[in-house]
């Protein structure tokens, strides 16, 4: 398995209320072992997955927002957020968590891999992906 593919995890749903967001994260975490080129995309209610300050303990749910912050260590290089979805919900990038990334070999560092992009870019990125997992 020497071939490297572009994997895109398309997250479309709110973090709590259904299990899709959490089980999508589980695939990302396990998938890290395969050394593929991995990006995440957040659209529609999926943008809520990155909103700061969730307190799901009140509904007896484990808070998994901290897990997103570690994704840089799991080989995730890009976390794209659809601008229109964000704006439709009255949110801006300031409402979202930041995720650091570092290449341990080259010591290249990125302070925040969470990037807000417009619809044309969303389409372009999905189009150039080899595998799109839609959750």
């Amino acid at each position, binding site marked *: *398995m020497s071939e490297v593919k572009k*994997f895109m995890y398309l997250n479309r749903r709110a973090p709590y209320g259904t299990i899709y967001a959490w089980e999508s994260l*589980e*695939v990302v975490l*396990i998938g890290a*072992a*395969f050394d593929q080129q991995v990006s995440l995309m957040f659209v529609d209610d999926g943008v809520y997955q990155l909103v700061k300050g969730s307190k799901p303990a009140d509904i007896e749910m484990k808070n998994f927002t901290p897990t997103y912050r570690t994704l840089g260590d799991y080989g995730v290089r890009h976390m794209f957020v659809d601008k229109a979805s964000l704006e439709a919900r009255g949110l801006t990038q300031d409402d979202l968590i930041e995720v650091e990334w570092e290449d341990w070999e080259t010591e290249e560092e990125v302070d925040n891999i969470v990037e807000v992009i417009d619809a044309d870019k969303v389409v372009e990125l999905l189009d150039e992906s080899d595998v*799109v*997992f839609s*959750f």
Partner: protein
Amino acid sequence: MKLAVQVNEGPYQHQASDSAYMFTKAALEKGHEVFRVFFYHDGVNNGTRMTTPPQDDRHVVNRWVELAEKYDLDLVICVAAAQRRGIVDEGEAERNGKDGTNIADKFRISGLGQLIEAAIQCDRTVVFGD
């Protein structure tokens, strides 16, 4: 073409499993290779042999089993999703101290790595879900 299929929803509640079955069957009949069918989220409920639909309805679970028997299909249920939802084979029953199993013949329980591996190996990964 070499295909991977992912099923994300349970039987009867949602059409995803029906559509995935029909797609898989059609692909096999056309001579394509289906490397693996991976059941995730509530899709794991497609693999319990306890399912008993009314006699005049389609049997979603048995349809998968029959397709697997005919084409030697690899039907894989995600272990993490299965544990949450109570889909149990002998190994899982032993590990987790359960008093029985409910997995259907021809299905097997394994890890998410099987999904990633299938996506890497196949020309297309086709996801059926909501």
